[in-house]
């Protein structure tokens, strides 16, 4: 534990703030829904129906049993925030994992594959940049229907597909650029001269060099993905109700803002803090792994 805190010593205060926010968020997403639903459910047992169904009178003020009050349907706001965090983090991580896999693969092939393959791949990547992100996501969501039978993952399916498809090209471009310079460095040329295969070169010598940078970029990308997911949910085409999402919570709280403005504060605050924290941590990681980059 002291080593973990030692790592934070002497770091930018914004970075430390970001790390703390993310840890709290992660804990909230993992155990929050269980704790909260147990606290508010009449039987005292954790029951996920209280994320979807009313447990009290609508629009209760913050304080008391429901800590942050209840929403327009009488559901516990804190439980829904925690469940929303679960949705956001899940979408963020899955999309980033897919985008990283595709992006790295395309980036590597863009440098090492035969000319005609790399040519097609990189032109295709360029083509993807012709689309403004949200526009492409909107188009994809228009074509894919949620798979109700797959549970939570199924209802998130269109959003995950749409955001994965919009996220990989920038990673592919980054990886390709990095590899193109790395492959002429002495240690790579040396390994190649001593008979290493291309696969060995890429997996053992080149990609490990990129882990730090990719980790930093991932943080900022995840922030972008979470923001995009909330945007789509705010628009009503992302995560579908009754599944909670910060974006749709903001949208529904907005409808009653003249009488109950406080309800808006919580989802807005959580979402903004999350985005700030991911960006701060991403910037901190980048300056840690890439000393040349200056602010």
């Amino acid at each position: 534990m002291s080593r973990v805190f030692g790592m934070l010593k002497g770091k930018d205060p914004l970075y430390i703030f970001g790390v703390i926010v993310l840890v709290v968020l992660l804990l909230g997403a993992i155990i929050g829904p269980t704790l909260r639903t147990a606290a508010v459910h009449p039987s005292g047992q954790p029951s996920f129906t209280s994320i979807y169904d009313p447990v009290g009178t609508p629009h209760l003020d913050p304080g008391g049993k429901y800590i942050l009050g209840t929403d327009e349907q009488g559901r516990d706001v804190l439980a829904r925030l925690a469940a929303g965090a679960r949705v956001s983090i899940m979408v963020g991580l899955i999309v980033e994992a897919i985008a990283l896999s595709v992006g790295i693969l395309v980036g590597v092939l863009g440098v090492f594959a035969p000319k005609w393959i790399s040519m097609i791949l990189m032109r295709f990547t360029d083509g993807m940049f012709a689309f403004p992100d949200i526009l492409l996501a909107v188009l994809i969501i228009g074509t894919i229907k949620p798979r109700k039978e797959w549970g939570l993952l199924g209802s998130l399916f269109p959003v995950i597909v749409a955001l994965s498809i919009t996220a990989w090209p920038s990673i592919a471009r980054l990886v390709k650029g990095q590899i193109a310079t790395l492959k002429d460095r002495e240690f790579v040329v040396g390994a190649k001269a001593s008979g290493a295969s291309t696969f060995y070169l890429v997996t053992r010598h080149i990609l490990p060099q990129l882990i730090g940078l990719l980790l930093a970029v991932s943080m900022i990308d995840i922030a972008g993905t979470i923001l995009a997911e909330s945007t789509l949910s705010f628009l009503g085409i992302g995560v579908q109700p009754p599944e909670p999402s910060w974006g749709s919570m903001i949208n529904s709280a907005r409808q009653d803002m003249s009488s109950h403005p406080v309800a808006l504060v919580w989802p807005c605050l959580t979402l903004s803090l999350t985005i700030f924290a991911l960006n701060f941590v991403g910037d901190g990681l980048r300056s840690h792994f890439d000393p040349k980059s200056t602010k």
Partner: protein
Amino acid sequence: MRLVKAILLRLLFGALSLLFISFVTFVAGEFAPGDPATILGGEKASLATIQQIRHNLGLDMPWPSRYVRFLDHALHGDFGVSYYSTHEPVRDILARTIPLTLKMATEAIILASAIGILFGAIAAIYQRKFADKSILTLSTLGVTTPNFVLVPILVYIFCLRMDRLPITWTNPLVAPEIFYFILPVTILSARPAALITRLTRASMIDTLDQEFIRTAVAKGVPRGRLLIRHALRNAILPVITTIGTSFGFLLTGSFVLERAFLMPGLGSTVIEAIQQIDMPVVQAGVLVTGAMFIFLNLLVDILLPILDPRIRESQV
């Protein structure tokens, strides 16, 4: 001659991007749930009617010829009819909704450029001083705060507490139109303003460091003239690219604000169309917005070497 070649290459790339976007849009239509002929025919249509509609839409052709047909129609501004309500031609829907979205995006980019260049220049001139630090902090907030978080905050302050601005668009409008645009345009411009501020600052700091500035100082050019005529004029050129790409993103950024303020623009129309699986409207909206985005980037790429001789020289 090199310039002409570079411009031609850019045009070719622009045309290819358009082709790519149109193909993706077409494929999306192919995968969309529901059969257009059945939807258009209505529930009571006989099999023969549906067959007839299918034939009229060209749905009985193989997909490559359908794509050529789709492209041909799109080039002539024909996107078919909406699946819902009155089967209104999509062309009319576009003509009705695009002006509002364009107006909003244009006003936002003008506002953002003015704010961004002014604050960016101030931050660069007072580098590392209080003004610079506060502008940088503000721009970080501007880049990271989501639009739809700004919406309720500003609506609460200006519409509910102060009661100075209308909350949403009404039909008919009860106040001059400009009042309905103030909040959405301001919010829409927040992010590009922050980006332009940062870029102007960086570019201006670079420029102020160059030798011709030192020469100008040594020759006794007055400070105001030095900063504006010598430094800012040079610093602003790379900023133009960002203004161009930002404008493209503003077109899609207006989706959120049109929805939030119930404005009858292209964005809110496309979102509604998605919820109703009204594919022709979605396709047309995406295609038109994408085309505008490509066109703007093209314009910037062609304009920049004409404005900046340094780029003209370095062009391939």
